[in-house]
C-alpha cells in the first residue's frame, strides 16, 4: 500500500531539464506500520528527455531540498528499485549522494538520508521507519572474535519524579552484560513496583563488556546507558572491572557511523563527567566530520568527538558523560543509533605523544575500521556494539496511571487542559517559556455573569420596564415581594443595585469554553424569583477566558533565505483592541505564531499573547494589554420614578443608561410609549453595529461614546477597527551586488574556520578571504610570510 506520495513530481533538473508529472522522481514508502516498513524509490528513466538516467541525488540540508540530477551511468539498468538495504545493493551503488560537498557512493541507502521524509512524518514515526530499515546487520562479527550476550531483563528503573514518574531508565548495570530484545510489538516490558512499563524501544538495547588486552584475564570495562526521559540526555557510564589495572587512556567516540547525515560544523556537547579523579580532556565541542570521500570505498563518515580520560587504574571507578539527544538530532536530523566506541588514543593521534598504549582498551565497531584504517590483527579486543535505539523518542506507557500529558514528545504544555482550552497547537516536545499562567480561572462567586444574545437582552429589558411594570401580572407581585425581602424596601429602584455591569464584546462570548448553559432565566440576589427571559441563557464559569485568535505562519513567498529576510525588516503585530506591537524578526520570520487573548469579563480588559514556535520551542514574543469589552451603563437611573409614573418619557433622561448607550438613537425612539421598544432599539442598534453597519451609526455614536481607538478604550466605537488580527512584515529590498551575481569575485560572508584547502569547491577556482591568518607555520622568511598573510587576508583563489 502506498501510504503517501512524498515528494513533488515536477522537478527542475540540473541543466534546465524539466520533469513532467509522469516522469517525476518519486519517493514512496510502503507498509502501514513500523513492524514491516520499507522504502521504495524509483525514477522512470524512460520518461526522461533523452533517456537520461537519474542517478545522482543531491541533498541540500539547509534548503531542505532533495534534487535528482540526470547522470549517465551506462549499463546499469533502469527501472524499479527498492532500497531495502542488503537486498538491493545494485541500485544502491548506482546512486551518488552529495552531502555538503562530499560524495557518498556505494552501499548507501539513499532513502534514509532523504530529508524529504522529514516533512511528512513526525519525528517519532520517521525515526522508527528509519530504524527498521537500517537495522540490517547484526550481530556484529569481527575477526571471529565477536561474541554477544543476550540481555534478558531491563535491570533497573531507578528513579522517580514526585514519586510517580520515572526520571530515567538504565539499561543494564555495571555487573552484567545484558541485552533486552523488544517484543513483537516493539516494546520492552518491565515491571517495577507493581507497575508495568512498556518502553518503546525498537530493536534492542545492549550493554557491553569491553574486554581489553588479554581477554583470558577477563579485564574489561563495562558500558551502560542511562536515558534521562525528561532532558533527553543519554548518559554513558564506564566501569572498570577488577581485572583492570592500568588502562589509562580512553577515547570515547560518538560515532553515528553509516547511514546518517551530518555536516561539518556541528558539535556535540558533553554534559557531564562524574569522576573527578580522572583528568578528562574534552575534544568534544569539536566535531571533526570525516567525509565519505575521505575514505573511498566506504560509505561512512564518523564524528570523532568525545573525551579522553587520563589517569591510572580505572579499576572499579566510574566515569560518565552525557550528551543531549537533541543536539544529535540536529546534528543528524534523525538519530538512528549511537555507536559508542572506545579506542586507544593512538587511533587518532600518533603514539608516543600521549601515552603508552600497552594494555590500553580498544573497543570499536567495524564502522570504525575504515575510519581509522587500523584493521589488523593487533587488536585482540572483543568487539561488541552498543546500540541505543530510538532514544530520541522513547515512548513510555505506564499502565496504572496516565502520564501521557507530560511525556516528552507529546504535545501539550504540561498543564491539564482547561475545559475547552483553545487548543493552541503545540510543537512536539516543545518547551514553553514565558507563557501566561493558564491556571488562572477566577471563579464567579458573588457575581453571576450572564451571557446574553440580543433577543434575550431585549426580553430582559422588556420585563424590567415593560411587563414587570404591569401590576396586573402575578409575576410582578412575586418579584416585588422578593425585592422587598432582599432589600427591605419596596422601592424597585433597588433592583438596579443588583445589576453590576453590562458589557458588549466584539466576539461571541457564548461559544467560549468557560460558558455554560444556565436555563432560560436570569436570577438576581438569592435567585428565588427567576426572571424568565426565555431562550438559551448562558453564564460564565470563570471571569477570565481565553479567546483563540488563531495562528499564522510568516513565510515569505520570495524569501531570500538569508540575513536579508531579517536585516532591515520590521514585523508588527496588529492586535485589535490592544494595539500594535513590534516583534523581533529574527524570532518570527519563517515561523508560526499563535495568538490568544485572555479576557477579563468583569471589566472588559484583555491581554493579547503572541507566541512563536521557533526551533522546536514555543515561547512568548509579545504581550499587549487592551480593552475589548465596551461597557454599557446601567446604573444611576431613577427607577423609582419610573415605578411611580408607570409611564416613560425617555427623552427626559429617566433611563440614563439607555440614553447614554444609544446616543443619538434616543431621538429616534423618543415618544415611544412602549418601553420594550427601547430595549429592542438597543439590541437592534448593537446588532446593526455587529453586522457592519457601524459606519452608519458611528456618527451618532461618537457624541455619546468614546472615540474609536485601535487599542480599545472601552467604547463600542472601537468595534469599528479592522476586525482581524494580522501581522505586517516590512522587509527591506536589496540590489543584487556583484558579489551575489558573481560570488567568485568577492564570496559570501562566511565566518567559519578550517583547513584552507577544504574550502575549495569541487570545480573551478574558489574565492576566499582569511581573517588575520596565522602564517607562522609557513617554511619561508618572515617577510614572505607577511606578504602571504596580506594576500590571504585580502582574498585569493584556491
Amino acid at each position, binding site marked *: 500500500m502506498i501510504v503517501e506520495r512524498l515528494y513533488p513530481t515536477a522537478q527542475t533538473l540540473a541543466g534546465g531539464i524539466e520533469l513532467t508529472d509522469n516522469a517525476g522522481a518519486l519517493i514512496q514508502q510502503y507498509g502501514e506500520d513500523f513492524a514491516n516498513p520499507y522504502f521504495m524509490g524509483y525514477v522512470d528513466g524512460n520518461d526522461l528527455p533523452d533517456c537520461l538516467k537519474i542517478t545522482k541525488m543531491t541533498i541540500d540540508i539547509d534548503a531542505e531540498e532533495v534534487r535528482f540530477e540526470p547522470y549517465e551511468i551506462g549499463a546499469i539498468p533502469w527501472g524499479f528499485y527498492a532500497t531495502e538495504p542488503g537486498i538491493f545493493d545494485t541500485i544502491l551503488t548506482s546512486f551518488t549522494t552529495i552531502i555538503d560537498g562530499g560524495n557518498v557512493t556505494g552501499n548507501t541507502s539513499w532513502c534514509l538520508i532523504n530529508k524529504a521524509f522529514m516533512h511528512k512524518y513526525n519525528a517519532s514515526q520517521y525515526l522508527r521507519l528509519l530504524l527498521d530499515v537500517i537495522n540490517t546487520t547484526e550481530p556484529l562479527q569481527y575477526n571471529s572474535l565477536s561474541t554477544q550476550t543476550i540481555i534478558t531483563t531491563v535491570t533497573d528503573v531507578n528513579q522517580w519524579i514526585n514519586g510517580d514518574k520515572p526520571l530515567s531508565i538504565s539499561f543494564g548495570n555495571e555487573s552484567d552484560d545484558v541485552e533486552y530484545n523488544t517484543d513483537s510489538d516493539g516494546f520492552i516490558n518491565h515491571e517495577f513496583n507493581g507497575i508495568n512499563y512498556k518502553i518503546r524501544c525498537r530493536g534492542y538495547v545492549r550493554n557491553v563488556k569491553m574486554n581489553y588486552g588479554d581477554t583470558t584475564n577477563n579485564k574489561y570495562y563495562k558500558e551502560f546507558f542511562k536515558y534521562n526521559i525528561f532532558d533527553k540526555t543519554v548518559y554513558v557510564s564506564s566501569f572498570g572491572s577488577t581485572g583492570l589495572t592500568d588502562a589509562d587512556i580512553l577515547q570515547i567516540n560518538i560515532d553515528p557511523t553509516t547511514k546518517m547525515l551530518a555536516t561539518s560544523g556541528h558539535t556535540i556537547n558533553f554534559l557531564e563527567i562524574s569522576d573527578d579523579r580522572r583528568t578528562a580532556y574534552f575534544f568534544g565541542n569539536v566535531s571533526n566530520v570525516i567525509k565519505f570521500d575521505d575514505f573511498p570505498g566506504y560509505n561512512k563518515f564518523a564524528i570523532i568527538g568525545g573525551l579522553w580520560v587520563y589517569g591510572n587504574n580505572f579499576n572499579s571507578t566510574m566515569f560518565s558523560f552525557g550528551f543531549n539527544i537533541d543536539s544529535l538530532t540536529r546534528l543528524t536530523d534523525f538519530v538512528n543509533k549511537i555507536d559508542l566506541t572506545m579506542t586507544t588514543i593512538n587511533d587518532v593521534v600518533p603514539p608516543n605523544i600521549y601515552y603508552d598504549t600497552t594494555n590500553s582498551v580498544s573497543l570499536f565497531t567495524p564502522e570504525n575500521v575504515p575510519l581509522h584504517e587500523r584493521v589488523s590483527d593487533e587488536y585482540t579486543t572483543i568487539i561488541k556494539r552498543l546500540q541505543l535505539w530510538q532514544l530520541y523518542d522513547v515512548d513510555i506507557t505506564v499502565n496504572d496511571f496516565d502520564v501521557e500529558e507530560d511525556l516528552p514528545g507529546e504535545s501539550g504544555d504540561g498543564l491539564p487542559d482547561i475545559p475547552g482550552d483553545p487548543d493552541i497547537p503545540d510543537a512536539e516536545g516543545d518547551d514553553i517559556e514565558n507563557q501566561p499562567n493558564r491556571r488562572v480561572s477566577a471563579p464567579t462567586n458573588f457575581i453571576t455573569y*450572564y451571557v446574553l444574545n*440580543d433577543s434575550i437582552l431585549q426580553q430582559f429589558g422588556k420585563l424590567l420596564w415593560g411587563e414587570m411594570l404591569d401590576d396586573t401580572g402575578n409575576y410582578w407581585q412575586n418579584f416585588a415581594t422578593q425585592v422587598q425581602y432582599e432589600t427591605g424596601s419596596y422601592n424597585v429602584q433597588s433592583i438596579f443595585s443588583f445589576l453590576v455591569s453590562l*458589557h458588549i464584546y466584539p466576539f461571541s462570548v457564548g461559544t467560549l469554553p468557560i460558558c455554560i448553559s444556565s436555563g432560560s432565566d436570569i436570577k438576581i440576589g438569592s435567585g428565588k424569583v427567576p426572571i424568565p427571559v426565555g431562550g438559551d441563557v448562558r453564564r460564565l464559569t470563570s471571569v477570565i477566558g481565553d479567546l483563540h485568535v488563531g495562528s499564522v505562519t510568516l513565510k515569505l513567498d520570495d524569501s531570500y533565505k538569508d540575513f536579508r529576510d531579517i536585516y532591515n525588516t520590521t514585523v508588527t503585530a496588529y492586535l485589535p483592541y490592544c494595539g500594535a506591537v513590534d516583534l523581533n524578526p529574527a524570532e518570527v520570520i519563517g515561523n508560526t505564531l499563535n495568538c490568544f487573548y485572555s479576557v477579563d469579563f468583569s471589566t472588559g480588559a484583555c491581554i493579547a499573547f503572541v507566541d512563536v514556535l521557533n526551533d522546536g520551542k514555543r515561547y512568548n514574543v509579545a504581550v499587549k494589554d487592551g480593552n475589548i469589552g465596551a461597557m454599557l451603563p446601567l446604573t444611576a437611573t431613577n427607577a423609582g420614578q419610573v415605578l411611580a409614573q408607570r409611564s416613560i418619557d425617555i427623552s427626559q433622561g429617566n433611563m440614563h443608561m439607555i440614553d447614554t448607550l444609544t446616543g443619538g438613537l434616543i431621538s429616534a425612539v423618543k415618544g415611544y410609549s412602549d418601553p420594550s421598544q427601547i430595549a429592542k432599539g438597543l439590541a437592534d442598534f448593537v446588532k446593526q453595529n455587529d453586522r457592519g453597519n457601524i459606519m452608519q451609526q458611528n456618527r451618532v455614536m461618537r457624541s455619546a461614546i468614546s472615540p474609536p481607538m485601535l487599542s480599545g478604550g472601552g467604547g463600542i466605537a472601537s468595534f469599528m477597527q479592522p*476586525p482581524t488580527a494580522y501581522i505586517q512584515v516590512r522587509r527591506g529590498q536589496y540590489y543584487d551586488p556583484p558579489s551575489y551575481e558573481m560570488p567568485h569575485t568577492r564570496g559570501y560572508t562566511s565566518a567559519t574556520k578550517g583547513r584552507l584547502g577544504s574550502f575549495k569547491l569541487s570545480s573551478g577556482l574558489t574565492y576566499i578571504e582569511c581573517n588575520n591568518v596565522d602564517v607562522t607555520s609557513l617554511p619561508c622568511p618572515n617577510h614572505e610570510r607577511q606578504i602571504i598573510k596580506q594576500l590571504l587576508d585580502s582574498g585569493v583563489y584556491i
Partner: protein
Amino acid sequence: MQIVLGNCNADPKVVDKRRYFTGQHYVDVQIYDNCSLEFPRLKMRISELRGNNYAYIPEWDAYYYVGNAETLNGNMCILPLSKDYLTSSADYILALNVSVGRSQSKRADFAVDSEIIASVKNTVYTFQFDASPFGVSNDQQYVLAVVGGNI
C-alpha cells in the same frame, strides 16, 4: 643552472598556479650580478624567450613572474624575475588552518553581508491570523453581571 620557463594565465591571486603553468621548457641561465632570491636577474639567450611570463627555478623550488627582459649584448638578455609567494608555498598555504571572513564555498546565510546594497524601499507582507474571531456576526456578545443570581 636550468630554469623552467612557460606561460601562466592565472590570476595572480590564485594560490596554486602550477596547473596553469603551460608551455614549459628548460632554459640554461646564469645568475646575473648579485641579486636576491626573490627578485633574481638571470642572464640567458634572447632566443629562449618565447613570450613566457612565468618561471620555475628547480634549485630553489620557487615560482616566479617574468618581468621585462633587457638586452645585454648580442643575443643575450637579462631576465628579471619576481617571486610568486603564493604558488611557491602553495602546499603549505592550503594546509593552513584559517579563519575565513568571506568565501565562495561556505556561506553564513544569516550573517550580514556588507557587500550587499540595500534599497530604501521595502516590501510589505500582510499575514492574517486564521481564526480572527472579532467582528463576526453573532448574537452572544453581551455579558450582564448581576449580584448573586445563579452562583
